[in-house]
């Protein structure tokens, strides 16, 4: 698999993991805080695994890929960049949409001719079972709440941009919404740069240091 595709997978998980960890300590209630934090950690763990694969191809290391690129070089989908903190409905909507999209993507990768990719996809899929359980239980709880259904509608074009055009009909079927114009990768939202600045501030303060 080419490095750029690996970086798309890695960057999606990494930036979403960063966004999800914004809820650590301030989730709606303590039990949920602990559960949500595990999801964020798992995402970052998955990102690390994809970065490690990409690092072999690009002859660098995972941390360098995660932290030492410029914002424009990140290959993540706009969905994961959006700053949604304090909006629980939107954050849950994003989780739910992303898990469905990522699930479709991972399913396809299980059959990859690249054994490393297929193997990693299989491991990730097993962990994501818990993410799906969590997202589904919340989606059902909030199903009748306007805030949630509006958030799903607002984020739907972004969600479509996570998967490839051929995979979009599958996502429409999974979510139960009609396909609309997707917000494609390639143009970063204004939310990415401030995220990147905060995320890399310690790292940039002493370039090349070991932490």
């Amino acid at each position, binding site marked *: 698999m080419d490095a750029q595709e690996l970086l798309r997978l890695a960057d999606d998980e990494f930036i979403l993991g*960063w966004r999800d*960890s914004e809820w650590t*300590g301030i989730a709606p209630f*303590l039990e949920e805080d602990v559960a949500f*934090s595990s999801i964020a*950690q798992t995402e*970052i763990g998955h990102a690390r695994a994809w970065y490690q694969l990409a690092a072999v191809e690009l002859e660098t290391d995972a941390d360098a890929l*995660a932290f030492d690129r410029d914002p424009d070089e990140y290959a993540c989908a706009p969905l994961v960049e959006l700053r949604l903190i304090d909006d629980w409905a939107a954050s849950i909507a994003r989780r739910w949409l992303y898990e469905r999209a990522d699930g479709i993507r991972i399913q396809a990768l299980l059959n990859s001719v690249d054994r490393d990719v297929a193997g990693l996809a299989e491991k990730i899929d097993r962990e994501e079972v818990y993410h799906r359980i969590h997202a589904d239980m919340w989606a059902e709880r909030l199903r009748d709440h306007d805030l949630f259904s509006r958030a799903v509608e607002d984020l739907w074009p972004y969600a479509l941009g996570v998967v490839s055009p051929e995979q979009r009909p599958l996502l429409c079927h999974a979510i139960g919404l009609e396909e609309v114009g997707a917000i494609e990768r390639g143009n970063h939202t204004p939310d990415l740069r401030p995220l990147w600045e*905060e995320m890399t501030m310690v790292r940039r303060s002493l370039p090349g240091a*070991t932490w």
Partner: protein
Amino acid sequence: MNEAEFEAYVQGGGQVEAGDPMPEGYRKAVVKFIEMHGNSELMGVLPEREWILRAPTLQRKLALTSKVQDEVGHAELIYRVVEDLGKPREACLDDLVAGRTKFHNVFHYPTRTWGDVGVIAWLVDAAAIISQKALLKCSYAPYARIMKKICWEESFHILHGRDVILTMMNGSDEQRELVQEALDRWWGPLMQFHGNPIPADDDPMFRWRIKSQANEEARQQFLDGYVPQIWEVGLTVPDPKLAKGKDGVWRYSEPDWDELKWVVTGHGPETERRLGFRQASRVETAWVRRAVLADAA
């Protein structure tokens, strides 16, 4: 059992469960003590949370998120114990943000650099663990039981803290300076952390075996365990009087007890901002609690 009999009972090792009859003074003292612990775990999360977002490697990000997750979990366990004594969680959080209840001094101070992250995980957590180990013997059994899980999870935090510090001390001059500078700022609050020395006989917390370790004993244990660790990596402690006497007792400059009192009564440099932040998040997510917790049968 009257109060004198109850006191004899707990002093003899007697355990108290949630449904047991207990003197009102004991119940109030237990609630106040445990609630302050819960508040502290929760408030400690806020400074650390900022650094999760800024962690400079994938491993540090994961380790710090995991540490903070443990602390939120501890807050949950602790507030559950308080709730079973009659004070609901939301009432505890209301009192906390209104400034009516306290939390430990160290969580009222700012964190300025990655050096603070290391010092907090290594030394602040160490100071807390010393107190927490003594609470394993608390006469109030539900609290003693959760302390076991809490102490086990905290052991991972100290390893993480030590790793962060040692990596920096083995790094560049600038990194070593970051650690020393952080230690210089945190030393005062660390020395105040265990509280001013109170004679055990005067302290109802002792008579009721809620606490089983004197403040000074805890501080001495901290100094004994950690000053050698601080010195052996080339760091200095900003107290020229700090030295271990031939009798094994550490001597040190008198901590600023006025500062401690001022800070824990809600006047720390970060108190207002952090409580405000916590309250703002609570308000934003109140609809979720109503939707999810309230309408549950």
